[in-house]
């Protein structure tokens, strides 16, 4: 089980959290101006990298808030968790 640092509540067990997918995906401001391919890209296409992954989590059994994390999908190690308004942390060497 992962140990996850909620930016508001501190270190908590993974059971308290819900993973919410890839981070920094922005909903198009004018959906009706999108082509089908652009809309499909927004809805469905994902990076799914083996390596550092920016992703959203929500502390559902705690403060209830969303935040972002930088986690390595090969080792599951977290480099950082950060609030949506925070600058994006650098990818570790």
């Amino acid at each position: 089980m992962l140990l996850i640092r909620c930016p508001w509540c501190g270190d908590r067990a993974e059971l308290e959290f819900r993973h919410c997918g890839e981070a920094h995906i922005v909903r198009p401001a004018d959906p009706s101006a999108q082509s089908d391919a652009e809309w499909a890209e927004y809805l469905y296409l994902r990076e799914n990298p083996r390596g550092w992954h920016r992703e959203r989590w929500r502390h559902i059994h705690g403060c209830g808030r969303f935040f972002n994390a930088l986690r390595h999908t090969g080792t599951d190690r977290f480099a950082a968790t950060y609030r949506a308004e925070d600058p994006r942390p650098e990818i570790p060497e």
Partner: protein
Amino acid sequence: MSQRFGLLSLAREALRGHRGWQPQWRSPERPRDAYDVVIVGGGGHGLATAYYLAKEHGLAGRVAVLEKGWIGGGNTGRNTTIIRSNYLFPESAALYDHAVKLWEGLSQDLDYNVMFSPRGVMMLAHNVHDVQSFRRHVHANRLDGVDNEWLTPAQAKAYCPPLDIDCARHPVLGAALQRRGGVARHDAVAWGYARAASALGVDIVQNCEVTGIDRDPATGAVTGLRTSKGAVRAGRIGVVAAGSTSLVMAMAGLRMPLESFPLQALVSEPVKPVFPCVVMSNTVHAYISQSDKGELVIGAGTDQYPSYSQAGGVQILTHTLEAICEMFPIFRRMRMLRSWGGIVDTTPDRSPIIGTTPVPGLFVNCGWGTGGFKATPGSGHVFAATIARGEPHPIAAPFSLERFTTGRLIDEAAAAAVAH
């Protein structure tokens, strides 16, 4: 040509002290410089694809399978071997039932005992939603010509005596039974396809990781691959890389509607035959059968986050074992021997992707998520036809990559409200 198996060859080898058996498939150290078709991924689906390309499409001797590890070492060797075809939608039922029909004759076709055992797959209903959903499945399957029947709790108990239908925590309100469903021996599936494909001239190259895909700058069409064992020219490439599909497709500049998650399974110590069928409980996420070696084979759920770690959280296993112990009290003192994880590539609608891609010459067969083993022969069969003809096989056509743009999803995820 590989050896035939039979009473005569067995008797001959018995008299010679079993010293005359040959390796079952050729395993060239390096790929040749060029092939007509290269399959990326030496799991069951990839090997089956190569076999049917060679057998049914006149490509004997012109196909290679490149595998970064050893054949059948990914999800083919890590699943719980459940075979069934009672999916809700006609497109899915057609695809999975095509596979079940091939399973029924596969040992004869390959001259290799894949130990297909149609002992029946029973899916338990624990609440009113399950009952309504599964009965709808039963009726839909019958309309599609796929067998599936509804059992009362007493009938479910009779079919699987270890089941506690009065279980206080997970009462059994009924079950859907597909009698043609069952299990097969996972390693034998990989080995049987490898042996049969190799006999038709397919080169199976292990420890050969694909590191790049080359494309013609003018047309964008694929021209070959770069691998850890040198460059290979090929006009057609079929990617069948399961959890690593996104990584391979990125080499051709494509993003996929896939996320890769760890899925875990575990086996118990071996005991005498005690469990006559396959039981699935989607609601509490537990799948159980007994292998011919006597181990209980138990499937758990996926972790919630994407990962390539081939491990998973222990809490996932605990959750499944709690459910198993509640539903089958006789197993409470069983010891578990080992657990493992595989990386499953899941699509947004939980249906696979089989077909062409925007890159000419590049084909993909992926997105089988948590339930690809059952489809192995059918998947390989329709994917081989798709590669050979350059257009989707009729059964594969609804499972195109374009469905995510057109919106014609095959939403088995919503249909069952669980992983499968």
